[in-house]
């Protein structure tokens, strides 16, 4: 038990101020051999010097910004070369782990077959009474949603359970799942997404293929990003979300569910556009509307992925919808 090797993967871009805290917390993990890989996406600040201080870290440098999806894929390929690595932990550079994070998760999922991923209780870094995420799921409007986002922590009420999927801010993925991807066009994260929604895509793919994902509340991590992201909301994430939303739905959802959820899906898009109008004005909303059209035009690109994923579907569409209606709690 004490000799489990876990590969921790971090993709950084201009995170010189926080990267040290993240790596420190990884080396403080109890009860595992850690194998740390960092990919620097062409930072302009001294992120690389910060990382170089740690001798044990495998540092990879990219000459251009690969984005989150491709960057992580590169790292996963590297990490899995070590045959001892059965678990890969994806850690955002703005996340900090509790010392027992890895051990608690591994103790819970140990011995279970067909586990895709597991995540702990991710709290807000600045206020440990606020939840950042408990899991992610696709709602009945076919939108990706973080469960528990900004709710008050209630440790008494949490218990380990099966969930729709995990939030890639701080989560473990099994080698078994990574190596058995049904989708031939994406090694793990779909690189065509570039950024945003790629963890929803992975979660959805795992669920559809009959893999299990778990939420283990005793494993605590702290995440800075999401809560502060609203403050300086730029158009870029909104545009990417809009573009990738349709791709996730198209790739993974059975036609029957798409048809039955079409009114809800349109309602969801309408609400999303209204929110954009509120945040960025009419001009922004038109831009997002245009992005949806582009997203639609991009769909044929995913046709092969869809075909393969549908071929490997093991979960019935009825139960898929039940999980969506239950907010991703299985």
């Amino acid at each position: 038990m004490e000799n489990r090797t876990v590969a921790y993967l971090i993709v950084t871009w201009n995170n010189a101020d926080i990267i040290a805290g993240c790596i420190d917390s990884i080396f403080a993990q109890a009860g595992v051999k850690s194998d740390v890989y960092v990919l620097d996406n062409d930072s302009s600040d001294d992120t690389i010097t910060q990382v170089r201080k740690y001798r044990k870290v495998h540092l990879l440098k990219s000459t251009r910004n690969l984005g989150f999806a491709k960057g992580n894929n590169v790292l996963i390929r590297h990490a899995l070369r070590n045959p001892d690595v059965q678990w890969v932990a994806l850690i955002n550079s703005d996340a900090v782990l509790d010392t027992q994070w890895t051990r608690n998760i591994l103790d819970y999922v140990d011995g279970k077959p067909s586990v895709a991923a597991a995540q702990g209780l991710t709290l807000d870094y600045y206020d440990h009474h606020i939840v950042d995420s408990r899991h992610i799921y696709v709602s009945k409007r076919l939108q990706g949603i973080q469960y528990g986002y900004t709710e008050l922590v209630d440790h008494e009420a949490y218990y380990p359970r099966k969930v729709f999927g995990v939030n890639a801010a701080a989560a473990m993925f099994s080698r078994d799942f990574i190596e058995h991807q049904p989708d031939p066009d994406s090694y793990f994260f779909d690189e065509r997404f570039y950024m945003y929604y790629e963890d929803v895509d992975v979660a959805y793919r795992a669920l559809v293929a009959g893999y299990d994902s778990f939420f283990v509340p005793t494993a605590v991590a702290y995440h800075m990003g999401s809560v502060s992201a609203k403050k300086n909301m730029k158009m870029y994430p909104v545009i990417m979300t809009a573009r990738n939303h349709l791709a996730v739905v198209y790739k993974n959802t059975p036609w029957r569910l798409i048809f039955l959820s079409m009114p809800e899906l349109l309602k969801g898009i309408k609400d999303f556009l209204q929110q954009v109008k509120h945040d960025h004005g009419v001009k922004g909303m038109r831009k997002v509307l245009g992005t949806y059209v582009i997203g639609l035009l991009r769909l044929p690109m995913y046709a092969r992925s869809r075909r393969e994923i549908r071929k490997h579907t093991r979960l019935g569409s009825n139960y898929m919808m039940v999980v969506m209606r239950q907010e991703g709690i299985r």
Partner: protein
Amino acid sequence: MPSLFRRGIAILFPVYSARGQTIRKVTSRMGLTRELSWTHPFEAYIKNVEPFVFHAPLRTEPNAEQPLFSIVVPFFNTPDEYLIPLLDSVASQSFADWEMIMADASTDRDRSVRLEELSHGDSRFRYVRLGTNAGIASNTNTGIQQARGRFIVFVDHDDTLSHHALNEAAVVIADHEDVDVIYSDEDAISDDGWYRKRPSFKPSWSPHMFLEMNYTNHLSVIRADLVREVGLLRPDRDGAQDYDLLLRIHALPREITTVHIPKILYHWREAQFSSSRAIGQKSYAMKAGTAAVTDYLDAIGVDHDGVDILPDKPAWYHCHPRWSCRVDVVVMVSDDVRVNSRFEEQLRAATGATWVVPRFRCLPPTADISEQCTASEADAVVVMRAMYLPKDRSWLDELVGALRLPQTAAVAPLLMTGNDNLVANAGFMEHKGQLRPLYHRGDVTFSGLAGLPDLLRDVDGLDDAVVAFPVNTDHPELFLTGVVDGRTWSDRLVLWGLIRLYPAAMPFRDTLLNDNLSPRDALVVLKDTVGI
């Protein structure tokens, strides 16, 4: 314009037609309309109330040697669409100390392979392959023999549990160390699992209602020692094997502690071929249920005239306990002797006793009947303080026979209004410290949250209008006037809903409406009978 549209829809798709139901179901599923209106309050309950009713999870480690609960599920060719929701709902329980015995009797090889593969998903699942399919009771028995837990939890292979089901039961066990049987509320889920509906909020433990129907089933948690003591399930009671088991447990000569958890812990799937939809077709199940109730009555030594199945209510059993004894029927409806005796004549005419020997007596309402009853050497007494008449002549046999059932302090019939379908009194229930009438002026055919008004049920209070009780009663309050308040009694007040009494105005009205009678004569008749 919208109203015109609505009217057009109402004409094309009437609500109470199959076409109307289908179009509403389809559009609500697509999210175009809201669901059928009768589900709204339950949806509000699911959304606003249910998330806050469960206890926080008890922190326990799984104990492989002797877990607290053994969930026993007999599987038979279970399709994935039922199997995975069930296994997920068990594996995600908020309470950890359980094991699940998967007794697999599938004839389909693929199903067995799949089930075994899924059983590796959690170390607490235990897969047991049965050689042959010997019926649901035998299959479950094999599972129970393998069980190591202190309590057995019975679950069907196409249903699902609430995530807090075992935790709630564990909290009850922690509070009452001596608890033997635990049951909870339940609801139904649609065949595809999308919708929850038909919630059944049950009364707290009511042995008399249990005689009429197996209302405590699902979620059923029973102490494992007891199950073994009565010799597990009986294969010849297939279809009602769980009812039979519980009846045999309650027939044991010692006191059985039953606790009700008033939360929905079990979701019963309206599967295409499950008993929840097609119970009318399962005649073998009803035969088994009838036999189970008969066995119970024999075991506790109550004479009876057999057990019927109510024709319009499948899986409801109507037992006829009997008591050959002398009964004092005391009529004390009015101060006026003439009114009393007139009503006594009517009552005598409407009564045909087979087993009891009735003696009708008239007394003023203020009389002290306790002395007179004990002096008359009768075994039971029926007090009539208001003018109600039966339509069924065997009412007295039924009412007095019910007194023979264990834990029965007093029995009252369902009192109706002059309008045939409205309830005048169906007993009282305690609510916020006060006795409140049940189904007051409610339609007798309309099922409320507590079920139909004409169920047998244990109540907290009875109207004193018509009450039957044994003469050597431990509760002398029964001889007094006023609402019978049994809240502090260990014995139970029973509303025997199968007997209905109607106001005795009918004969007078017949007389008054007689065409040959002049208004003046009618007034005389009225004065004569009512005493004004």
